[in-house]
């Protein structure tokens, strides 16, 4: 069966450290992998997109890697700040899909303490 797995346990991290989140998937062939941020009671907000033929993408303090052999994406927040505290969702855009559907993971909560 198809699955997208993200750590269900919250990641507690000290300000200034690097937070690393994992997204693993099975039985998908994604064209793109996206990461979203969701604050409590709000809708997700798009952060980064990486294509299947890209290894790494960066945006300010964020870095995403994509390994289609391992079927895994890593999401890094460097020099983390309390304002980075949120839930982070990965989402797959499928090569065989159309109309822009995404398959979302359940998300990992990040808590950055001062």
């Amino acid at each position, binding site marked *: 069966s198809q699955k997208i797995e993200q750590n269900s346990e919250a990641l507690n991290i000290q300000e200034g450290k690097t937070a690393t989140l994992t997204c693993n998937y099975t039985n998908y062939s994604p064209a*793109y992998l*996206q990461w979203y941020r969701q604050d409590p*009671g*709000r809708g997700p907000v*798009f952060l980064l997109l990486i294509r299947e033929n890209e290894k790494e993408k960066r945006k300010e303090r964020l870095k995403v890697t994509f390994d289609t052999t391992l079927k895994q994406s890593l999401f890094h927040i460097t020099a983390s700040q309390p304002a980075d505290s949120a839930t982070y969702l990965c989402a797959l855009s499928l090569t065989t899909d*159309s109309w*822009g*559907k995404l398959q*979302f993971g359940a998300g990992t909560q990040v808590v950055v303490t001062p």
Partner: protein
Amino acid sequence: DVKVTQSSRYLVKRTGEKVFLECVQDMDHENMFWYRQDPGLGLRLIYFSYDVKMKEKGDIPEGYSVSREKKERFSLILESASTNQTSMYLCASSSSGSRDTQYFGPGTRLTVL
């Protein structure tokens, strides 16, 4: 900036009521989506639409219907609300050819008593 708005942030309804949730986007996006989000289950797709009057079932369409009469507006209808439909409902839109990046509304927290 893309803006997606939803008709209500919080809604309380009684079992058996017909419930309408409305979503409007202002960026002329072709695709629109309705999700529900429950703790531990993530976002689950209920219905989506890729054009006016076109709709497709998502992963959990049972108990729901949708309407898209205008490009900017996508409505979710609960024909007869039940307590197991208590959830956070999120609407999203995307542009065809945009590599599927979705823009979400603020969500509607629906409670069915």
